[in-house]
């Protein structure tokens, strides 16, 4: 039986919606519904992917998110904003016409999340294996990483530097440099270094790092 997957955006940049649309086009294992393709009603027991941050000053949105949680068997925070805050970690409010929109949080600040997929936006190469693992129904190592991410509310290049490079467990594979969406990671003397003003706190490097991702799994799941 095909899985029903619904995508809801809570007010992000729509980059995640577009990335999902691209990745899901040729996915045989699921029926994918997005508001970019038309209206839909969410059925009970569905798999729901949520992108965009939750604005803590918008009670309607919080209620809406809680309702989504009730309906979903599996709730997936898709993209950095929904998973770990991402660029919205820099928000400080005060802007017209809604200056009271100050606090933005990843959605795990409000509801329990089953999987969090960081990325700005997550690449189709990350999404497809994820959906396939989910469809297979088995708990694979790949899914575990995303399960572990649900326990954190922030991840950035600094965390990678602190936990991997300063601990001297970096293997200089360059995965962080390749994965960084803003080019904030570069190699200096054979080791990754963070260009601090370019880091948008999307957490992609941390999840892609073969060492850091295992640290996450060990810290939160074992």
């Amino acid at each position: 039986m095909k899985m029903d997957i619904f995508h809801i955006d809570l007010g992000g940049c729509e980059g995640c919606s577009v990335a999902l649309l691209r990745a899901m086009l040729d996915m045989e294992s699921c029926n994918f519904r997005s508001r970019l393709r038309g209206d839909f009603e969410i059925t009970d027991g569905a798999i729901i992917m949520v992108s965009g941050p939750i604005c803590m000053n918008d009670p309607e949105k919080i209620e809406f998110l809680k309702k989504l949680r009730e309906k979903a068997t599996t709730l997936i925070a898709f993209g950095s904003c929904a998973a770990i805050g991402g660029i919205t970690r820099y928000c400080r409010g005060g802007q017209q016409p809604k200056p009271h929109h100050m606090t933005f949080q990843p959605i795990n600040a409000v509801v329990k999340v089953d999987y969090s997929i960081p990325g700005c936006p997550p690449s189709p190469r990350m999404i497809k294996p994820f959906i396939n693992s989910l469809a297979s129904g088995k708990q694979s190592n790949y899914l575990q990483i995303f399960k572990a991410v649900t326990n954190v509310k922030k991840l950035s290049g600094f965390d990678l530097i602190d936990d991997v490079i300063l601990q001297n467990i970096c293997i200089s594979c360059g995965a962080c440099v390749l994965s960084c969406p803003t080019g904030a990671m570069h190699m200096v003397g054979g080791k990754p270094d963070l260009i601090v003003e370019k880091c948008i706190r999307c957490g992609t490097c941390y999840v892609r790092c073969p060492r850091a991702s295992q640290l996450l799994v060990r810290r939160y799941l074992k």
Partner: protein
Amino acid sequence: MKEKKISRIGGEAELISIDTSKLFIVTAPVRGFEKMVEGKSPSFVVQAVMRICGICHASHAIASCEAFEHAFGIYPPKNGLLVREAIGLLNRIQSHLLHNIMILPDILKSEFVEKATHLTIFALENINKVLSDLAGAPTHPNRIVIGGISKEINENMIERCRETIKKAEEIYGDIEKMEMDESKWRKIAIDAKNKEVSNEYLASHPFYGDRFSINPESIEVIPYDELHDEEVAKKSSAMVALYDGRFVEVGPRARLKIYRNFSFDGIIGIQIARLKEIGLAIHRIYEIFDQIRSGQPFRTESFMVGRGEGIGVYEAPRGTLIHRVKMDDDGRVEAYHIVVPTMFNIPLMEKTNSEFGIRLFDPCIPCATHCERVKT
């Protein structure tokens, strides 16, 4: 009062009907990028403002770079500007094609929709590939930097991009043929062709953007609830922009009306202009590829960062986009203001009085929430 969520647009909005008038209410939260970038360094700002919108990402990055370059008094080398223009045009095609996927069910009879959608998706995949090659990523491309482009483009890469664009061009030909065929249109599309509108138009350049061809001082930004007295208007998180105190249409039709001979005055003219623009953009990209000289610089080598003010004007897929920046002594942002095309279009979108009309304008909600009142 009747409210309806509008689907198949970029972002989240409601259409509220009161008597005979329609209100376009933006319900997305205000993330406040203009406040976010205050006190930050320019290279962060370019990466941050790109994340205002996942559909017109490159446009925001280019407008921001233009504003900073204006403030620092630098002018990127020709190669840098050319590649940047190509990236911007690819973003334009990408956005237009994405919008095509969203609007096709309104225009074509149901039996043709699926085929046209598939064709559009194929074309989009090719364009995404070129954008990844040239700009680093299909969404939020990271090679657009202040002073030009951060990676040199060589001839092999250009050749590869040219091949892929050729594929996209062929598919685009099929899409255009199918979508311009009025016998395949639904009734609402034909009605929209006959319903003429007379809007004033604003555009600054056919392909790139030019801060000298419009007067940024004439732009006035007001909150949405000053446009409508109804209580519900306070709910909206959008702002509205006026040019010289008047409502103006920006976007593909405005560009073609001002810089080309374009005669479709029906509201569907916007969609036809959008299709034509894809073709024009592809031709311009070929031209750009011929002019890029590998071996010559792609980026300004060094520049001083300090106090200054700058304006960046860029023609985003949906119309004229304006970024204004004021820098402090340390070379950090003191104030930042953005005027996005959807802000100009909101009043005219409401005038069409239908969901289809609004969708034709391709409103971009993530952008529309990020704008601050400009004091005049």
